[in-house]
């Protein structure tokens, strides 16, 4: 696996017009898929809930509706969806190029770390300028961390999965070092992170709720740019060609290696942007768990939509609503909120199964 000189084509990286084809599929096929996905997921998670002694109906009601309870939870939902969208959009780039960018978690983290630098060094600049600086620094940080994966993959032949995973752990190590070392709170260093930023530097929110409109706006723009670049430009076509067959693309004159690097750089920049938003709009400080698993969740989103940018938005909202909805489970039902992850993972697993069954039929 690690020694293969060419990139293996990711089978689920369908060409862009797949959305149209999927819509045109015979209704029976769609029904079979939906049946496998929804039926399988419900059956499995219900069994898991029963095994833990919880009433499944009550749990489902809370998970599905919890995110839409009141303006506050809706604000939380939007603030989780924004970075998730950015990461998912970035991953559609790398998936189209046939790369499993498991290093995305680290790219978010380094983006957040670099975003902290201007905020700490130049706190007297006018806030809008600082936000711009922090967002740019975040994007650059994520991009550099992703390019490291690219260099390891393309120049030294280290499988991008292991390079990325290793770099994730290193990124978290850097964060821990900063939080407990040079950037520690005056007095006591703790897992709760660095000293919170002065409120003037937070991204402005709507009155009364924690919704910073700039975050979803940036996310939607990022997603739009990726969708356009992948499906409407020659550059996007070349990325997909490189993803389907690296050697063949190279032989046909496509600068395939450069395209792989660029897809990683783009994904890293978007992930870094997400990390900067986590600082500016969500946590207002650098905390050890700054990525909150959003990168891996985005990988699940993209595996489910099969690098088809059109479906990224609804699926990202759905997955984020599971995560927000399950936050109240420990209080209300006394069960762990990781059931959201079980639900998301099972959904993707059965989506893969449905895809396989359809492929055979």
């Amino acid at each position, binding site marked *: 696996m690690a020694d293969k000189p060419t990139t293996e084509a990711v*089978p689920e990286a369908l060409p862009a017009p797949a959305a149209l084809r999927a819509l045109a599929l015979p209704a029976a096929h769609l029904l079979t898929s939906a049946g496998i996905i929804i039926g399988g997921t419900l059956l499995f998670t219900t069994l898991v809930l029963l095994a833990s002694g919880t009433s499944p109906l009550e749990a489902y009601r809370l998970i599905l509706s919890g995110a839409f309870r009141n303006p506050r939870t809706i604000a939380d939902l939007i603030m989780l969806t924004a970075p998730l969208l950015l990461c998912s959009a970035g991953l559609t780039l790398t998936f189209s190029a046939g790369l499993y960018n498991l290093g995305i978690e680290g790219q978010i983290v380094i983006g957040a770390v670099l975003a902290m630098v201007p905020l700490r060094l130049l706190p007297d600049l006018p806030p809008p300028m600082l936000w711009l600086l922090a967002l740019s620094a975040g994007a650059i940080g994520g991009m550099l961390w992703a390019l490291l994966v690219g260099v390891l993959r393309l120049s030294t032949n280290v499988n991008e999965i*292991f390079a990325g995973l290793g770099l994730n752990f290193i990124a978290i190590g850097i964060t*821990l070092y900063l939080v407990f070392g040079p950037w520690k709170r005056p007095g006591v260093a703790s897992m709760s992170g660095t000293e919170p930023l002065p409120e003037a530097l937070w991204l402005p929110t709507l009155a009364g709720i924690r919704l910073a409109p700039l975050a979803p706006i940036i996310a939607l723009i990022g997603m739009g740019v990726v969708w356009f670049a992948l499906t409407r430009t020659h550059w996007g076509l070349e990325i997909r060609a490189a993803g389907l067959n690296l050697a063949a693309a190279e032989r046909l004159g496509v600068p395939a290696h450069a395209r792989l690097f660029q897809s990683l750089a783009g994904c890293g920049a978007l992930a870094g942007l997400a990390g900067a938003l986590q600082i500016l709009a969500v946590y207002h400080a650098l905390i050890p768990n700054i990525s909150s698993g959003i990168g891996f969740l985005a990988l699940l989103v993209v595996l489910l939509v099969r690098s088809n940018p059109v479906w990224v938005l609804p699926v990202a909202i759905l997955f984020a609503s599971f995560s927000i909805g399950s936050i109240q489970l420990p209080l209300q039902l006394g*069960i762990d909120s*990781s059931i959201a992850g079980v639900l998301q993972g099972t959904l993707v697993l059965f989506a893969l199964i449905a*895809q*396989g069954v359809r492929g055979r039929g």
Partner: protein
Amino acid sequence: MDTQQILINLAAILAGAAPLIFATMGETITERAGVVNLSLDGKMLLSAMTGFAVGVHTQNVLLGFVAAAGVGMLVALVLCFVSLGLRLSQTAVGFVLALLCTDLSSFLGNSYVRVPGVAVPAMPIPVLQDLPILGKILFQHDLLIYASFLLVPLVWWFLFRTRAGLTLRALGERPTTAYARGVPVLPLQLFYVLLGGALVGIAGAAYTLDLKQGWSYRHIAGTGWIALAIVIFGGWNPWRVAFGCYLFGALQIFATRSQNLLPNIPTQIFQVAPFALMILILVLVNAGSNPTLQRWIEQLPAPLSKPVQQVLARLNTAAPAALGQPFRRP
């Protein structure tokens, strides 16, 4: 450090690496049969939790291990169904299973966090434990750790000295040829992936029922990914893979010990060092087949470049040729 301390450290390395030995031997068998099981990290957590929970309820260590092996096989079965049966990307399914099993272990293991459980009893071997030096290092452990010593030569002997092992390797190298010679490729692959899954399950329980003796959320997260990297480092050869496990174990022991010796260095460096080393090692084992690096080495002064090339050539490993490619009946 006096001799006594060195002996204790060596014994700790051998014991600490035992779960990794089980996990990597399982994955070596799986990958030799041509299947990548990327779900290791989550699967180990889920089987660690299950083994511990069964141990708590039955007060029986052995049943805990049986349950853990069963969970490992069950997850492997799902992987086989989706990747061998439906021929979908093994990487994708493995990754999803890794995340899913991690969350399952957190959710279902909720009520077992930090409760007292059962543990593998220590079992020093009579007579042998009194041997000078060797007794302390090798013969004052428990049954699980003795089993890890025996597992490595056993897997090597099976892979390279038996007829069945030859067939197993053929599954990963030339499945079509094996099929033409009458080998039932898919059923055998299923069998070996399940066997590998059982060993990985035992590895998970080895943490909760032996080394760490307890369960908490994600407490061995990351180990599975390390195990996967060690298999590559070891070039799918049991001896070298085992060497990788002990090297990693030594690094961990060294990290915890030197934290006291060198208090000025931030502890995070030691926590991260294994992962940085993992990347470096993967660069090295791939260096032999890397033209850019080869050119750099050739520019080194002659007395230096020769030995460097020889070392890299020895480190160089090649994966089973058909690794990760679902078999299609011709």
